[in-house]
């Protein structure tokens, strides 16, 4: 029998090693797998390369991982936000490397890794600082830049529901990078609000087929909210 369900967030991230490339889903906090990130902080892996759209918000989730000095490099499109003070301080101190990628190229490079594409010509970024030194080509009279896939060792993503095969459905705009990161990583770990029985997800509406997911951990919606006062007590 196939059973990708793991008993705890700690178990889910137990083999994330120093120096790993880890994709983390989410657009801001929508779709951010906070409990998996917390488990990764507890796990203690260092010198990580993180791929995310942003570079952390406030002091929780990805920001907490940065604050704990576990991240050597971040690949993202939009680090600077009103509440990205953790990243901002590390960056200004020269203590974190930044690879800035236009958001669509970031998404397409992640997609290319999962789809077995070796490289692709994109019009985005042509003639800008972010294409400096990159190969370009004119195709049908239009300018393109050659971009390469971004692969990862692990992906941490958040979905709404999953089953023991790893099939996933998401919730609203929290879907964002989850499906493509799952496919781009050797080991994709999904936290879901609810684990359902095999066959409960409509096969027409499954967004991430289970083939892309190696581990599923159930984190009910109430857990985090309920845990906060307890942790403070």
């Amino acid at each position: 029998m196939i059973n990708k369900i793991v008993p705890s967030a700690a178990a889910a991230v137990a083999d994330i090693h120093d120096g790993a490339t880890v994709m983390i889903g989410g657009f801001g906090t929508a779709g951010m797998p906070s409990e998996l990130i917390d488990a990764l902080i507890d796990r203690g892996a260092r010198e990580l390369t993180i791929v995310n759209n942003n570079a952390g918000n406030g002091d929780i989730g990805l920001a907490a991982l940065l604050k704990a000095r576990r991240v050597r490099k971040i690949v993202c499109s939009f680090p600077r936000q009103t509440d990205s003070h953790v990243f901002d301080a590390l960056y200004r101190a020269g203590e974190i490397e930044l690879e800035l990628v236009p958001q669509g190229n970031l998404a397409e490079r992640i997609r290319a890794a999962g789809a077995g594409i070796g490289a692709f010509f994109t019009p985005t970024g042509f003639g800008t600082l972010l294409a400096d030194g990159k190969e370009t080509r004119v195709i049908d009279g239009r300018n393109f830049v050659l971009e390469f896939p971004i692969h990862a060792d692990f992906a941490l993503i958040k979905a709404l529901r999953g089953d023991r095969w790893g099939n996933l459905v998401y919730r609203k705009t929290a879907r964002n990078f989850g499906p493509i990161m799952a496919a781009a990583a050797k080991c994709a770990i999904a936290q879901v609000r609810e684990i359902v029985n095999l066959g409960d997800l409509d096969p027409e509406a499954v967004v991430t087929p289970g083939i892309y997911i190696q581990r599923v951990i159930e984190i009910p919606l109430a857990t985090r909210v309920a845990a906060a006062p307890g942790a403070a007590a």
Partner: protein
Amino acid sequence: MNRFSREQMAARVARDIPNAAYVNLGIGLPTMVANHLPKDREVILHTENGLLGMGPAPAPGEADPDLINAGKQPVTALPGASYFHHADSFAMMRGGHLDCCVLGAFQVSVAGDLANWHTGGKDAIPAVGGAMDLAIGARSVYVMMEHQTKSGESKIVADCTYPVTGLACVNRIYTDLAVIDVTPVGLVAIDIVPGLSFAELARLTGVPLRDGTTVADAA
């Protein structure tokens, strides 16, 4: 000097968006355009974080943290909306399927080069987001910005001094002083704030500018 207000600018942009258009409104000033879309038009809004058919801000207390726009503000979804992942969302943009996007800018050049992502300052932390994809992806790229910097320099320039977002991508510029088309023969003012002469506008703009307002009247 008389100036278009931000609301007037937003209303003017909204007037130029036809029924049935697929539109992406950038962060900041462009977001205001949504409030001015004529009620008799059905315009479908795209937000690059994976939603087509975006609705207005939710009623107080009804914000859903999983339903946000590219500026990470809570929004709603209209009947007929659809969700998709980031690669699909940017394929939609890059593939030329959006009729129009409206963006803020630091500068626009006479060739339609756009600078809106980075001041290039040494201590500035760069952030690009989806700006470069929007600049090259939409069929029409409209820019909304103040005509001049706070120190009175024209933001419409011969060549961008800020790092560019995209080359030759802007089709029309809406400022607090005028509406200016970027055309193969250069910049053409098609609308000027009441009380400002074309000659004065041209002087303030500081780059070659044609008067398209009289032509428009004659047509």
